[in-house]
């Protein structure tokens, strides 16, 4: 019964737990605001634990997907099929010396990796995982998600600029230029969805897709969103900021140890958040038959992550000016057309 409620009525289940805690607080005479704080901390810990565990899984998955696409195995020695490889990586990175060149801008150099990670994490607080399971059910959740996502790209540029290396500088500048231009079609594509659903609240968007997913109602927007989010996340054919073969390692060139790990984690957190946003906007979020909503949501975001990885390991990297031309001459007009057609259909 309890388990059934956890899976199928997660909203009521969470409210039930909160009720129990509140009753207990009233009994021992604790202020209601304190119990709310404790509740928030617990939610934050659960969220962060979920993100960390899933990101660890993603780093493993990326290696495995890359490996099998390239007809090799990927990690095999650490545990069965290398499943604890991320742990080995984390231990290795923890023991590495965090180096800094003379002439780095110390404060920014230090906080950029952290802030990038935080920026990527902020997106999760508006993502509805399951009915009633959303940290902050904002009415303007979509806007907040894009703001947070743009913030993390800013710290990619800051990190690259502060580390006093020419490659890093070029990488950081590329990241900034890319984010600036790809935010526009990203948001335009999402606005089409918002128009259809009638609101910026992500919960509302998911609920409006009960009968039909938005990917059917808005296929062009889905494709454009996919492309623009690849660029936004510095991934796939648009990983120009890192561009290992051109810029050595781009903005990561001078980072090592845990600072590098934070960037790395931030990148995968961003990837997962991008997949979650795509799922929420186009794939109907938690909706699905038979299985409990939370499982549907997890399945969908991991399928999306796989698609992102699949794309990354298939295509060559695009050049920076083509990237811009592609955006302004191709993605943006299509996004505008899509928006116009959607509006027209809605009005009629």
């Amino acid at each position: 019964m309890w388990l059934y409620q956890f899976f199928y009525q997660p909203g009521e289940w969470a409210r039930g737990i909160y009720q129990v805690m509140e009753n207990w607080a009233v009994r021992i005479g604790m202020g209601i605001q304190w119990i709310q704080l404790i509740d928030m901390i617990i939610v934050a810990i659960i969220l962060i634990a979920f993100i960390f565990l899933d990101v660890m899984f993603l780093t493993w998955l990326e290696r495995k997907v890359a490996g099998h696409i390239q007809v090799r195995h990927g990690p095999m020695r650490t545990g069965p099929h290398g499943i604890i490889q991320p742990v080995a990586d984390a231990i290795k990175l923890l023991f590495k010396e965090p180096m800094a060149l003379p002439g780095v801008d110390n404060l920014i150099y230090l906080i950029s990796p952290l802030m990038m990670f935080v920026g990527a994490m902020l997106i999760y607080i508006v993502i509805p995982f399951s009915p009633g399971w959303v940290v902050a059910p904002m009415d303007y959740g979509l806007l907040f998600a894009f703001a947070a996502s743009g913030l993390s790209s800013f710290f990619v540029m800051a990190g690259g600029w502060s580390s006093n290396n020419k490659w890093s500088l070029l990488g950081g500048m590329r990241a900034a230029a890319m984010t600036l231009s790809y935010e526009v079609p990203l948001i335009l594509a999402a606005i089409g969805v918002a128009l259809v659903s009638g609101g910026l609240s992500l919960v509302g968007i998911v609920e409006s897709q009960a009968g039909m997913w938005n990917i059917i109602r808005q296929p062009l927007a889905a494709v454009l969103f996919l492309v623009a989010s690849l660029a936004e996340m510095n991934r796939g054919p648009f990983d120009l900021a890192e561009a290992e073969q051109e810029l050595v390692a781009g903005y990561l060139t001078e980072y090592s140890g845990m600072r590098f790990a934070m960037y790395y984690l931030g990148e995968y957190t961003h990837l997962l958040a991008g997949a979650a946003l795509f799922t929420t906007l186009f794939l109907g979020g938690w909706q699905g038959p038979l299985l409990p909503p939370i499982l549907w949501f997890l399945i969908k975001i991991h399928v999306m992550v796989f698609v992102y990885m699949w794309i990354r390991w298939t295509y060559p990297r695009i050049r920076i000016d083509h990237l811009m031309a592609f955006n302004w001459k191709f993605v943006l007009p299509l996004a505008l057309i899509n928006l116009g057609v959607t509006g027209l259909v809605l009005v009629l």
Partner: protein
Amino acid sequence: MQTTHEMVVNLGPQHPSTHGVMKLEVVMDGEYIVDCKPVIGQLHRGMEKMAEGMLYGQFIPITDRLDYLSPACNNLSYCLAVEKLLGIEAPERGKYIRVIIAEMQRIANHLVALGSWGLDLGAWTILLYTFRDREMLLDLFEMFCGQRMTLNCFRVGGTTYDLPDGFVEKAREFLEVIPSRINDYEALLTKNPIWMTRLRDVGVVSAEDALAYGLTGPNLRASGVKWDLRKVYPYEVYDRMQFDVPVGSRGDCLDRYYVRIQEMRQSCRIVQQALDQLPPGDIMVDMPTIALPNKEEFPNNFPEVVRHFHLLVQGYAPPEGEVYLGYENPKGELGFYLVSDGSGYPYRLKIRSPSFINMQIFPKIMRGAMLADVIAILASFDPVLGEIDR
């Protein structure tokens, strides 16, 4: 006041995509290249001088280290140059074996070129596919002569070994597989819009420039000049083979890519024909002054032993004179200029290595390109540093 200035960046020797220890001193204005200066020499081993202290036969394994991605072709070019100096020719079967191995080596070289090129442009997966297919060729080489990379499989006047049992069958197996694999690469790259935009109209070399700078090989043919030494001065048994010389039209990176893809298909054709025509017979020229005697006769044939020692201590002395011969290597014309003073050692050996000459045009075509183009152009010329620095 705000000012902008150009940035000097050392692309290499520790850069991930310079194909070895090459350094390009690049002056950049933003993402655009203002000037580019190749700095070479980190891999210099003094091969030309080494040759002067070695018998003609001793230098063959050293040529493996020139263009270490196509050692068999280097062996072949050197052996042919010495043979010309001596005025001999390998027997029929030896010639066919040489052509089979050399053309396989050409495929292997183009596979590496293609894979590392894809890798340089961010298409990681193609590298693993091409290396998987190259592995089949390396297995064949190991079967034939015992090494995978540094073959040292040809001798002056023939080849070291005959083809082992099962080689022909395995080679045919490879020939059956490879066309579909090349189709896969094409599906991944040829018409991929990203790949096309990255390469088209990048690093354009006009036919006049290509000739003026002395480009050879696929890089010259991509500019529209139909010049293939296998066709122009047929050596070995190439005159009996049916094959086309693919040429490009625009001379940009995309043409260089496509010429290489086509050349792989043509090489497959050549190997196929050579395997079909493979005659029985000797693999080494039957001349007591050049070929080593048969070791099995030694216990009861003392003069042969003496000849053996004489050949290996004094070498074969070509007549006085000089010879220059260039042959079509996967990367271009690899030429050996040999001066003989009548002794067993070459008086002078000059190597005309294709990568070195092809690289001269870099500063000209890199100006005005973007940083990402530098990588694409560099990879499109398929340089090997062992050959540039010698």
